[in-house]
C-alpha cells in the first residue's frame, strides 16, 4: 500500500538574531515524513535538530525567523474527510496555534521532571487540550483522560487524575506527557530526547510504549536524539544533522551498516561499546563551527581528516549512493572523481560485529 506523505520540508533555512550577530541555525534542510513511519534526526548539540522540530511545531523563539523554505502538512479533515494541504511557513501564528499545534502534531519533551505544570493536577493537564481544541465537556474529557492514562500504562488512573506531578515518578510523568500529547489525536508525534532524563530501566519501556502506540494509532514519529542506541531501536529512517544541514540520510540499515559520511563514521565510532579492546572512547576531534559566522565549503571540513581541497571552498550537494534509492550523502567523497576513501578499520570491524548480532537477533 502506498503510504501518504504527511509532512514535506523543503530547503528550510532558519536564523536567529542574537547579540553576537545573526546565527544561521538551519541551512537548508529537506525531509519527508510518511504516515506511520519513524524518522530520527541525529546530531550533536547545536546541530539544529531541536530548532528544526520547533519550527515544525511553530514554536520558534521570538528572535528566530524562517528565512526561506516550506513546511507542508497534509491531513484529512476529521469531519468531511477532505484532503487539506497547508504550508505553515505561510500561515499566521494564530492559525498555526488553532489548527496545527496540539491537534495535528504533538510533542514529548526531554525532561518529564520539568515539563509538567507543578501547580495543576495531571488530570486537568490532560483534559485541557481536548476541552480547548474540540470543545469537549468536562465529563467527556475526563472519561477520555482516564482512557489515555490506561493506554499509556498508568494503573489507578482515577486516583492519578487528582495527583500533582511531584507525586509521580519520572517514568510515570513521561507517560503522562505522552498521554497529553496523544489527547488530541495528532498524526505526528515529535519526541525530543524522550528518554535521556530517565532511568535506563525505564528508557526501554518508554520507547516500547511509544512504538506500541504508534502502531495502534498509525501515527508518524520524529525522534530527536544524539543516542544512536535509541535510533537503532526505533527508527525506520535516519537523518544525520551537522551544523544546520542534513549530511547523510537513509534507512536504518544504510546508516548503521553502510555509512558514507565521515561525520557519521565519527558518530558511530564514538558509540560506547563493551566488547572493544580500546581503552579510550573515540571522540570526533574539534568542535562544531560557530554558525554566527558565514560557513564556506563543507562545515565539517575542519574536523574531517578525509577532507578534500574542494571541501574548504564549496559546500557539497546531496549525492545519491549508487544502488540505493533511500541513501543520500552530502560529501564530496561521493563524487565520481573523488579519491576512494574507506571508513576506518576499527569502525569496519564494529559494523561487521553489529551485522552478526543483528542477524542473530532476527
Amino acid at each position: 500500500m502506498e503510504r501518504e506523505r504527511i509532512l514535506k520540508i523543503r530547503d528550510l533555512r532558519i536564523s536567529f538574531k542574537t547579540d553576537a550577530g545573526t546565527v544561521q541555525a538551519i541551512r537548508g534542510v529537506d525531509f519527508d515524513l510518511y504516515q506511520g513511519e519513524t524518522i530520527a534526526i541525529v546530531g550533536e548539540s547545536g546541530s539544529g535538530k531541536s530548532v528544526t522540530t520547533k519550527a515544525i511545531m511553530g514554536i520558534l523563539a521570538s528572535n528566530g525567523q524562517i528565512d526561506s523554505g516550506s513546511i507542508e502538512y497534509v491531513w484529512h479533515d476529521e469531519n468531511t474527510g477532505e484532503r487539506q494541504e497547508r504550508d505553515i511557513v505561510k500561515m499566521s501564528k494564530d492559525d498555526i496555534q488553532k489548527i496545527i499545534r496540539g491537534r495535528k502534531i504533538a510533542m514529548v519533551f526531554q525532561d518529564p521532571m520539568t515539563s509538567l505544570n507543578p501547580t495543576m493536577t495531571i488530570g486537568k493537564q490532560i483534559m485541557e487540550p481536548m476541552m480547548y481544541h474540540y470543545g469537549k465537556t468536562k465529563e467527556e474529557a475526563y472519561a477520555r483522560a482516564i482512557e489515555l492514562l490506561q493506554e499509556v500504562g498508568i494503573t489507578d488512573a482515577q486516583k492519578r487524575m487528582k495527583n500533582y506531578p511531584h507525586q509521580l515518578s519520572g517514568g510515570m510523568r513521561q507517560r503522562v506527557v505522552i498521554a497529553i500529547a496523544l489527547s488530541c489525536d495528532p498524526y505526528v508525534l515529535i519526541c525530543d530526547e524522550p528518554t535521556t532524563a530517565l532511568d535506563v530501566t525505564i528508557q526501554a519501556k518508554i520507547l516500547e510504549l511509544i512504538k506500541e502506540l504508534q502502531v495502534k494509532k498509525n501515527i508518524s514519529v520524529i525522534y530527536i536524539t544524539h543516542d544512536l542506541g535509541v535510533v537503532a531501536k526505533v527508527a525506520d529512517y535516519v537523518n544525520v544533522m551537522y551544523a544546520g544541514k542534513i549530511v547523510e540520510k537513509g534507512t536504518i540499515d544504510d546508516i548503521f551498516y553502510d555509512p558514507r559520511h565521515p561525520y557519521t563514521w565519527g558518530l558511530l565510532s564514538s558509540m560506547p561499546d563493551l566488547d572493544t579492546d580500546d581503552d579510550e572512547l573515540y571522540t570526533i576531534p574539534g568542535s562544531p563551527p560557530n554558525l554566527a559566522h558565514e560557513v564556506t565549503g563543507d562545515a565539517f571540513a575542519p574536523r574531517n581528516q578525509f577532507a578534500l581541497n574542494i571541501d574548504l571552498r564549496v559546500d557539497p550537494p546531496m549525492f545519491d549512493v549508487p544502488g540505493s534509492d533511500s541513501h543520500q550523502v552530502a560529501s564530496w567523497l561521493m563524487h565520481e572523481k573523488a579519491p576512494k576513501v574507506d571508513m576506518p578499520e576499527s569502525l569496519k570491524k564494529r559494523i561487521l560485529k553489529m551485522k552478526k548480532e543483528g542477524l542473530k537477533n532476527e
Partner: protein
Amino acid sequence: MDKSTLKYIGKRLLISVVTLLVIILVLFAMLKMMPGSPFNPEKLSPDMIAQLQAKYGLDKPVLEQFVTYLKGMLTGDFGISLSIAKNIPVMDLVGPRIGISFGIGIAAALFGALIGVVLGVTAALKRNTIWDSLSTIIAVIGVSIPSFVFALLLLLVFGLKIKIFPILFNINDPIRSSILPTIALSVGAIANVARFTRSEMIEVMKSDYILLAEAKGLDRGTLIRKHALRNTLVPVITVLAPIIINLMTGSMVIEQICSIPGLGSLLVRGIQANDYYVVMAVAFLYSLLYVVMMLVVDVLYGIIDPRIRVGKGD
C-alpha cells in the same frame, strides 16, 4: 481541606504561640532594662515616685511583674497608661488607632501588590520594549526614594496646589484623608513587587512546562492565565508578606507627616515617655500581626503550591 493540610496548619499554629510568648518575654525584659521611668523626676520628689511605683506595682521583682502582666494579658487586660494619658486603660488608647493604622496599611499593601504584579507581568511579557523600561524606571524610583518624600510631594501637589485631598488627617472624613498616605506608603511595595514579579515571570515563561503548554496549542492568553500566572505568584506571595507587615507597622513616619492618629505615632510617644504598658501593647500587637501574617502566608502558599502541602518527609 484534607487531613494533611489541617495537620500542617495545627503545627504552624503551635509554633506561632511559642514564638509570641518568647517575644513578650524579650519585650518585657528590654523595657525594664531601659533607663528612665514613666514618672518625671524633675517635678516629683523621690518619695512621691516611690509611692507611685508602689501603686503601679513597679517596685516588685521584675519576674513577678512579668507574671502579673502575662496573667492580665490572658484576660485581655493590657494595663493602664502610666504617663501619656494617666490611668486610662491601654486598650482604650490603642483600640481606635488599630483600625486607622491597619486600614491604611492594608489598603497600601493591596494597592501596591496589585499595581506591582500588573507592572511586573507587563514588563516580563513585553520584555525589552518601552513598557519594560517604563516599569523598571518606576521600580527604581520606588525603591530608591523613601515613602515620606512621596508623601510630602503628594501633599504638596494634591493637597496644597490642587486641593483635592485634605493635608491633615480629618477624622470625620477618614477615607478621603487616607488616600494620599496610602499611595505614598504603597510606592515601595509597588517597586519591590514589580521587580520580583518581573524576574519570576521571565523565569516561568522560560520553563519547560510553558513550552509544553504552548505545544498543546493554547493561545497566549490562556497560557499566561492558566499556566504562567499561578506559578509566578507562588514566590511573589512570600515577598508580599513582609511587605504587608512593613506597611501596617512601619507607617510611623507617614503617620507623623500626615498627622494620622495611628498606632505608629502612639508608639513613638509611648517610648519617649517611658510608658511601659503602651509600648508593650503596641509592640505586642505588631508581633502578633507579624506571626499571624506569616501563618496566613504559609497556609496560602500551601494552597497555591501543592508541592509544599505534601512535604516528602511528612
